């Protein structure tokens, strides 16, 4: 049997018809015997009736037209960055995961590629201040290349960078411009003289060209003109990479100058690259000297 207090708690639901049959029967039985609870029930019913009769608001006549005007004029609701980035999750999350992966791979690729590119940049920055005024527009380009070495963008043929005959002055210049190696010698990433080469006083040139075949052909032609010979061509995947040529020692300077001229005529970029330790081949008994020409394919962007 429910007490008055328990019945009071149920009266509100009783007014709303939300009691189970059993509880409702018990409440009804209690109300038949309890005047106080009947009064309370009457008050609750009056309050409920009063709330139901509260003044209401009629829709304004232009409610629907105004609404449709808003719907047509209003842009999409502004999304939070979370909505923008992640929703719908089933679509955006996989796409974003793939995109992140692609970017990561791209960054790694560029980082590796950038190192090769840096080699070329450093090649072109070690220029010879004693070389005088640029002999060709290409040389000016080479100097510009210090800031933005993009040799393949404009030239009809790929750029070629080579080192002129090394001299003590140039070695000094290179020493000033290049970071010092532990041994105190300026270090070019691209052009390090091997110990064996040093002992043979091997002079080394580098030719930067996007078309190694063209570079090779140019070198071959010039070698013939100075009565030299191509001793060896090392190839990498079918493209020439390193060439060793043998020239009369007296023709080395001329050979280099001609190679510079040839490239200058072609409007190609030129730059000086040299190992500061390189000394010109000094003919002793044999008036011939070897030159190693390294053909470098510049990184493309």
């Amino acid at each position: 049997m429910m007490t008055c207090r328990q019945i009071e708690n149920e009266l509100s639901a009783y007014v709303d018809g939300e009691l189970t049959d059993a509880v409702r029967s018990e409440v009804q039985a209690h109300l038949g015997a309890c005047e106080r609870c009947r009064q309370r029930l009457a008050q609750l019913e009056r309050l409920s009736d009063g709330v139901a009769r509260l003044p209401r608001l009629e829709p304004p006549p232009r409610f629907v037209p105004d609404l449709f005007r808003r719907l047509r004029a209003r842009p999409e609701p502004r999304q939070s960055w979370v909505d923008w980035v992640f929703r719908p999750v089933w679509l955006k999350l996989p796409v974003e995961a793939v995109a992140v992966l692609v970017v990561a791979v791209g960054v790694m690729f560029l980082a590796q590629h950038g190192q090769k590119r840096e080699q070329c940049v450093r090649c072109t920055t070690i220029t010879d201040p004693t070389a005088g005024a640029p002999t060709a527009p290409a040389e000016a380009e080479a100097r510009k290349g210090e800031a933005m070495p993009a040799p393949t963008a404009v030239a009809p043929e790929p750029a070629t960078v080579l080192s002129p005959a090394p001299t003590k002055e140039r070695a000094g210049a290179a020493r000033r411009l290049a970071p010092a190696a532990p041994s105190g010698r300026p270090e070019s990433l691209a052009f390090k003289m091997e110990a064996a080469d040093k002992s043979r006083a091997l002079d080394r040139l580098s030719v930067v060209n996007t078309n190694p075949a063209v570079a090779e052909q140019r070198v071959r032609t010039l070698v013939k003109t100075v009565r030299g010979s191509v001793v060896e061509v090392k190839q990498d995947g079918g493209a020439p990479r390193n060439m060793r040529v043998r020239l009369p020692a007296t023709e080395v300077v001329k050979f280099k100058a001609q190679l510079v001229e040839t490239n200058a005529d072609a409007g190609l970029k030129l730059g000086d690259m040299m190992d500061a330790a390189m000394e010109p081949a000094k003919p002793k008994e044999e008036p011939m000297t070897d030159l190693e020409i390294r053909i470098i394919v510049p990184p493309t962007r």
Partner: protein
Amino acid sequence: MESVLPSDRELIMQAQRGDDAAFEELVQRHQRRAINVAFQLLRNEEDAVEVAQDAFVRVYRSLGGFRGECEFTTWLHQIVVNLARNKHRWWWRRGREVTMSLDAPVEAGDGEMSQQVAAPTDPADVELAKTEFVRTLERKMTELPRKFREVLVLRNVEELGYEEIAVVLRCSVGTVKSRIARAREALREAMKDELS
């Protein structure tokens, strides 16, 4: 031959396929309900109409996500109650007096807001609605906590069952039952002079 009106569900499906006429029919059908719930909760005509419009805009934008797991009216009530709560918070942040008086003059604006409080059609009800009791009740309602006002409006004005109210307010039926009981008790206490 008698024409059968499409159900809310049918109208929603048509609207989901891009039929604006079906959506307009939905709005026509439920605009009074949306405006009134907002008005009972906010007691401000302009804000009530704005909230109702916002609610239909939200419905329109979210039509694609409506799966019919509940009645359209339940969904609409949910949205209106939430937007009214937001409006309340907006008032509160700006220190606006929330309590509104029925005696306050109506701001007509450009004339579109000139709607009047609807008068019950029954002459007897008209008399009753005009009594001081209802006026006092209305004022006391505005002084109740928002949660109490919500359940009383949904129950006595919208005549929703406890289960539907529970869905609208996202709480249990037991919570609805006890909250309505406490709300009425609070109102009874506030109106004890008028009830005696």
